[in-house]
């Protein structure tokens, strides 16, 4: 009976993993470069407002509606703001 109530079949798991994997493979962006981009973004935003650099995250992803070879990567940044006013 457990078979019927499995959360996710392995095919779906494979598809989900591949989608994320291939995005980073295709972009060919090294972790070092991502780190540099991250610190640069933080520097620029910090000019105007106070942000939480510790909790900030950036990643390369695709828009949900696009799959396959034609999908355009997007740079996704999640930057928590501590204070909208500059210190």
């Amino acid at each position, binding site marked *: 009976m457990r078979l019927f109530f499995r959360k996710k079949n392995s095919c779906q798991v494979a598809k989900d993993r591949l989608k994320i994997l291939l995005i980073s493979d295709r972009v060919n962006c090294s972790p070092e470069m991502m780190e540099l981009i991250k610190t640069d973004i933080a520097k620029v935003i910090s000019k105007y407002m106070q942000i939480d650099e510790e909790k900030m995250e950036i990643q390369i992803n695709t828009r949900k509606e696009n799959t*396959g070879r034609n999908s355009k990567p997007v740079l996704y940044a999640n930057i928590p703001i501590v204070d909208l006013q500059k210190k």
Partner: protein
Amino acid sequence: MECEVIVVTSGKGGVGKTTTSANVGTGLAKAGKKVCLIDTDIGLRNLDVVMGLENRIVYNLVDVVEGNCRVKQALIRDKKNPGLYLMPSAQTKDKSAVTPSQMIKVIEHLKEQFDYIILDCPAGIEQGFQNAIAGADRALVVTTPEVSSIRDADRIIGLLEAAGIAKMDLVINRIRIEMVHRGDMMSSSDVVDILGIPLIGIVPDDENVVVSTNQGVPLVGENCPAGLAYANIVERIQGKDVPYLNLQKGVSFFTKLSSLIKKS
């Protein structure tokens, strides 16, 4: 007709490049075309054994490139299929024995005499791969419905695009329809969706492939799932529109029913 040079490649090893090369080449020859198969896997040649021609090798690709023999002397004629020739690879040398420009020269020479040249590419993306794709007009990218093989195929597609080979078609090998129904294997449409190049064939996982390799006789055109699938690929390579095989045959009613329930 203008000669078409097709490279069979995959990135990952063991997904069926050599089997696909042998069957596609044999199938095209059976359709009356003049076909030359070239094994570009220097140091790890295998196309000769799959074709059952291993006892007749005198000269090989490296001998041709080094000028030890004329191109014609290295070609082995397949006695069972008129119009089918194999240029074997060397077993003792390594990939650096040949350069891409030398490959192009050999292919240019062969183009005059053949309708199709099929290049069996080695695994990997190093020099052997660069040699194999150098003279190609189009590519067959072989993958199995597994994560590792699809990832490598994606990388290969990127490299082929960069090399200016725009015509690429996907062969999905070793599909097990029962597992797809169970939701434990990616379906052909899942794979096409991820890789984003046109599909040219789906080859089911078939025990007969092992038997045919044992015997050294490609099974294209035989009345078994893989034989029929390869025959269809051969038709599609020639530009014919052939419907896909019904792989559902033999799948039990219960499997179909339970996969329907799972989908909903």
